[in-house]
């Protein structure tokens, strides 16, 4: 009986592996840019990130998937907690016109950072991911904004990653170039 059971499990696992092996291939191409020091106190709580990505090499006619990820490691020296929000903006950010309560821009994700206790700063490591369909064009601009509310004295570092994913078969010489200005 025990051998029959073991064999059944083997067949199930083997089936799963065969299923994965026969699924359409999925290709992804990634580039990453260091965002340097993120000093929210110096930036009055608002850090815009404007940039573009470009795909070098052939891509087919299918609509591609784009994943933009902001990864951060932050420390909070204030006793109060804070919320770091990632926004995806329609237009380049402008201090005079942008209001978080009024905007129709997309709130991508919120990262909560706890307050400091004594000498120990509150800390958070997190990834805020923005996923969207990419309708043609091998170059595309993007406009992101990191907004801090609550705590003021927050510093850290981070990087931005862009990944292009497609199920269409691609040659090997495709690469993605990401720029942040």
């Amino acid at each position: 009986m025990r051998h029959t059971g073991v064999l059944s499990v083997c067949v199930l696992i083997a089936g799963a592996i065969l299923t994965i092996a026969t699924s359409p291939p999925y290709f992804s191409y990634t580039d990453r840019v260091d965002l340097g020091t993120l000093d929210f106190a110096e930036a009055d709580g608002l850090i815009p990130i404007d940039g573009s990505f470009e795909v070098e090499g052939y891509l087919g006619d299918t609509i591609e998937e784009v994943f933009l990820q902001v990864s951060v490691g932050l420390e909070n020296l204030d006793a109060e907690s804070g919320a770091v929000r990632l926004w995806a903006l329609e237009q380049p950010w402008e201090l005079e016109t942008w209001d978080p309560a009024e905007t129709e821009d997309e709130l991508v994700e919120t990262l909560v950072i706890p307050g400091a206790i004594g000498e120990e700063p509150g800390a958070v490591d997190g990834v805020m991911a923005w996923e969207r369909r990419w309708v043609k064009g091998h170059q595309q601009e993007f406009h992101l904004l990191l907004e801090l509310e609550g705590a003021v004295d927050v510093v850290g570092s981070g990087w931005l990653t862009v990944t292009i994913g497609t199920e269409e078969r691609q040659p090997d010489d495709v690469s993605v170039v990401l720029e942040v200005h």
Partner: protein
Amino acid sequence: MRAPRLSSMLPFLVLVLAGCPPGPGQLEDPEELIDDGCDENWIGTTVHDQTFKLPPYAPAPGLAWSVEWTVPVEFYGGVGSRLRIDNHDPDQDCMVAFYVGDEEPWPEALPALPLGEEPPPVVDGLGELADRASVPRAWDGNGTWDSGYVALSTDDQPGMRYLTLAACEGADLTVGIETYARHCSSLSDMDVGAIVEAVTVEVVF
């Protein structure tokens, strides 16, 4: 001699990749694979799991509970208690501190817990500080949480411990308490559950 085609080897490769033995004749006895060393075979059994809503005021918000356990023969393990504190209040962060002592706690002993300051490491009537956290307020409508943990026993010491959670005033908190036994012996879950004789939880503050 021609090399075998990859497609003819696929079933074998899949079985090898799946971590399965190649044939019944070579099957190893599963009993031989069990390592009785306590470094690798720890088993945890939850013996108590309950969630409470903390009163926000009067005279100070807190929660007290006690855990009593015995130790059977051939037991190698310990008893521990875990906390999860959820802050549903959108307006304020909350400091919480978790004390462990050998005597029944006094409600009047609860310390004030100013935001940003270290709680006192020892409090008369409550015992020693085991863990603390600053639980952020519920940002953007989503509650936030933090957790704490204390090991109550080691190996072969039976006993009784009193635990207290001290919290800030006014916040909307729920507290989950999980007490469990951890062992690497051949005892069943039922036997291990029985070693914790009583987990008594009472909102006293």
